[in-house]
């Protein structure tokens, strides 16, 4: 995302800094990968549907083929003892990265102390009880938004 910001705001001047912040807040709010949403928003802004499709294709095509190449290598060589040893290490680190991202967000200013209850509930519901996400979100999101509105009164 920092790279996307530099390209859009500083190099190409497609968006001002405020417009970028506004677009980003929308894209974080909407479902889907944030960076993909940003591409769609910016594309749509300049060239409507065609712009959105072009931006999406531009963002996704090269990484998609790289991913396929890696996937092919993995299927070919993944069962070799050396490769699987390598991957045991890397997947432990990748898990650590996710843990760190979660902790970083949990300690950020945006999570107000009283609202942390909803974070705990979400963790219990999803990680421990393994509830289906759709069902859980339909219950939890309206409650959380209502609590925010109520607290803001």
């Amino acid at each position, binding site marked *: 995302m920092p790279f996307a910001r530099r390209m859009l705001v500083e190099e190409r001047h497609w968006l001002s800094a405020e417009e970028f912040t506004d677009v980003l807040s929308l894209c974080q709010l909407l479902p889907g990968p944030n960076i993909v949403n940003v591409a769609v928003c910016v594309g749509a802004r300049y060239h409507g549907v065609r712009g959105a499709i072009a931006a999406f294709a531009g963002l996704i095509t090269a990484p998609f083929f790289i991913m396929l190449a890696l996937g092919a290598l993995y299927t070919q060589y993944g069962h070799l003892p050396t490769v699987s040893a390598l991957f045991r290490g890397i997947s432990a680190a990748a898990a650590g990265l996710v*843990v760190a991202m979660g902790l970083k967000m949990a300690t950020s200013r945006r999570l107000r102390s009283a609202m942390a209850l909803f974070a705990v509930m979400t963790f219990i519901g999803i990680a421990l009880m393994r509830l289906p996400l759709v069902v859980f979100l339909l219950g939890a999101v309206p409650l959380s938004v209502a609590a925010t509105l109520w607290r803001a009164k």
Partner: protein
Amino acid sequence: MSEDALVQLATDFSVLSLIAVGGAITVLPEMHRSVVEVHGWMSGAQFAELFALAQAAPGPNILVVSLIGWKVAGLAGAVVATVAVCGPSCVLTFAVSRMWQRFRGARWRAAVEDGLVPVTVGLMLAGGYLITLSADDSWPAFATTAATAAFVLATRIHPLWLFGAAGLIGLAGWV
């Protein structure tokens, strides 16, 4: 692989697309549930490895679905999974982006933004917990996960270096 798998990839990942509030990582628990627990397409350890591969590679993390699709149903699976996970949310984003400016400063807009934060945090922590349990089966592996998390939190080191170091630890046969 059968057409059934393609249909299931398409339906499951389209739903994921529309509930991925806060980005790709938040649907990690649900992806794990669908791929490992419901359909049994792969083991938890394989899921963790594909996820690691997607994180180490350039491009959006969500492309882990391309790898999952590839593993389940080859090239067709990769294309179906990728389009399914991006399509619905892109269409929604496209539609909403046109009217969003109008609601700048609206009270409910701020409430929706703030209200989603704790749920997103809970989902990310759940994802970290589940992927750790899938990836690690020994105490040195858990230690590697903990050390990586600590380095990411405490330093500005690029994650790829940590992946490299962890790969070496793996090669040494310690995890």
